[in-house]
């Protein structure tokens, strides 16, 4: 087949609505492009903008953030916080030269399997049209992911694991 660029898109979903929407898309056998890799969080409110930057810095061409519709968050209003973070992040990314289409925030209720599938399709096409992001090269790195998962980022939690559930 002709070499068409296949974007890699990392998707963050909340456990309650959007991940279930993805499940629904599956159970209803909806077909969508295989370019998306979903990471399940409990709530879109868990989304640390750092995750998005890591995904981009580590070679993803786009990031999809998805949660419950405003007013339907299973943790009341946490998805609003996601929304606030998203817009501030988006403004920041614009300054870094990342096109808005590459990082999208969409709401999908557990019933909106179709919607989610359609959005994924749409996004894959948009990002494909934009071409590779290939940030490691942009950042002057040779694609090495070392800085994406630096041990320093981790050492602290080791200290903590017990303290968490006690």
């Amino acid at each position, binding site marked *: 087949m002709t070499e068409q660029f296949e974007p*890699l898109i990392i998707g963050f979903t909340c456990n309650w609505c959007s991940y279930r929407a993805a499940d629904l898309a599956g159970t209803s056998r909806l077909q969508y492009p*295989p370019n998306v890799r979903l990471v399940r969080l409990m709530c879109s409110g868990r989304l640390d903008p750092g995750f998005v930057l890591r995904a981009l810095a580590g070679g993803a061409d786009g990031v999809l953030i998805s949660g419950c519709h405003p*007013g339907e968050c299973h943790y009341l209003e946490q998805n609003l916080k996601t929304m606030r973070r998203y817009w501030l992040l988006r403004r920041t990314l614009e300054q870094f030269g990342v096109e808005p289409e590459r990082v999208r925030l969409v709401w999908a209720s557990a019933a909106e399997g179709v919607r989610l599938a359609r959005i994924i399709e749409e996004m894959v096409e948009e990002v494909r049209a934009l071409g590779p992001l290939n940030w490691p090269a942009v950042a002057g790195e040779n694609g090495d992911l070392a800085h994406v998962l630096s041990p320093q*980022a981790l050492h*602290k939690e080791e200290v903590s694991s017990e303290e968490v559930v006690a």
Partner: protein
Amino acid sequence: MTQEKERIGVYVCHCGSNIAGVVDVEEVARWAAEELADQGVVVARDYKFMCSSLGQELIEQDIEEQGLTRVVVAACSPHLHEQTFRTACERGGLNPYLSELVSIREQVSWVHARDKEAATAKAKNLIAGGVTRVAYHEPLESLHVPINEATLVVGGGIAGIQAALEIADSGFPVYLVEREPSIGGHMAQFDKTFPTLDCAACILTPKMVSVGSHPNITLYTWSEVEKVDGYVGNFTATVRKRARYVDESLCTGCGICEEKCPRKVVDEAFEAGLGYRKAIYRPFPQAVPKYPVLDPENCTYFEKGKCKACQILCPTEAIDFEQEDELLELKVGNIILATGYDLFDARRIPQYGYGRLPNVYTSLEFERLCNAAGPTDGEVVLRDGRTHPESVGIIHCVGSRDKNYNNYCSVICCMQSLKFAHLVKEHTGADVYNFYIDMRTAFKDYDEFYQRVMEEGVHFVRGRVAEVTDAARRPGEEDKLIIQVEDTFVGRQRRIPVDMVILSAGLEPRHDAEAVARTFGISCSANGWFIEKHPKLDPVATMTEGVFIAGCVQGPKDIPSSVAQGAAAAARVLGRIQMEELALEPVRAGVIADYCSGCRICNDLCPFNAITFDEEEQITEINPALCQGCGTCVAACPSAAITGTQFSDRQVLAQLEGLLRYSGNGAGRQREAVPAGGG
């Protein structure tokens, strides 16, 4: 990335042909074993049905024989079988949380059926993510919290009463808090109840009395819950007991004060504005508790500083003008919210003339009107208080099923309107017209009642009423209320002159529902009704552990359903109380004290009030029992001093890294590098 190498087992499920039909599962297993060895994978198998007992045993065996420290299963959605495989690990002697379920069915085989190559590649990639993630999983124990056996029931309508009695009768303490001076709720205002037409008071008051006298029920009327702290099993509710200006310990409820009080005011509450009460009053004779309430807004003494008739004449000197609000702290294990509904304000539809045209009544007014204990002693009369109507129009769906007001159906209006039609006939023999959109008479004996009313000769006009006007157009309309309506059966406009119009107003969430929801840490749907945990399978529980809902707070419903929900909620609570102790999912956030600078960024982020600030230490703390594990605070902490179990940075990042490192490219094909600088 893993610190000391874990021993990881990977299990790829065929799910019959559900997965194997698309994904080359053998290849995936082979790949995992080879390519992910450096990530700690020591064994990778594929199997027909991992969820089968044989499949699970496979895992258990490997844990024992291969000394696995982590398990990754690639099968269906975690929402289906996460628990299954966790238990399998547990049986194998591994902490259940050291496993990870990767969905390659819902997310791969079922959605990429057309591209097997890509599907297989994606499956590999997702498994890689699972493997890198699971290495950072931590053994977790679920939390156990003791349950206080007392229960707080908010709202003394029929639903609340039912719930309170069920629990109290089972021998557990209940606090019942009611905003009005008496319990009874809307039902106490009704005359008859459909479809059986037995008198509301006759069936309700006995229950009210037993609430009032029940040894296990502490009743606080004229009171409101202001604040709720704590968490399931251990709530602390702060209740404001408003001043009654009557000393309950002295009052005998003889009613002399009420009798002697010189001040008469329209009773907007119980009599729906149709009757009068005194400044010191009991809403109705059978009120529970029996003590009256003095309403300072209308009391001559409070206005002018003199009068005191009630105080002077009270035989037991129970009147206390100095009385003040009390704040009570109630410790309870569970909470049932049964705060009911508000009636739709018919004034919002001016073309129906309510408030302008004297003889337009609302449903509640009418209930009082034909209630033997009501302002007219049950006489159905026009606003002039004398004339009996010769013709009555009853309009359904006022404020319901109308995009200008409420989209939803208020459920009870049809039956209520039929009841009104019957009662009008019974009381006055007048001609009755019912104007409806659809007749909704589901449930036991309802439709029979409809038929009965039809047989009684009530006219039914199918059509939405355009306006109610007193502008006579032609002879016969003079001094009447003319109902302009499109009769959709005959397909033309009709003008029907009547003497009296009854607006079957819909049900709305309490005006302060939002605030109440916030106080109790639960959520309202877009139109304001409280959201149940599951609309079908868990209708009386909420997303907040230990908070239940019953009756119209959850949505419009009739008396039987409200009672049923009251009982259901009670049953759920009793179940909880029996457990004595409650196990909570250990997906929780926690503060690493050593790293918290007390910046207080996170302090306002938790809707469950799990986050508190220790002024002493100047650091923030998280109450694990209150925490629901959403992780918002984890993501918000600017100094990474908050971490979350099961969704820690480490785990998410590790998964991310697996996904990125082993992605190949978006669809598993090779991608060519692009020059730096991007655009």
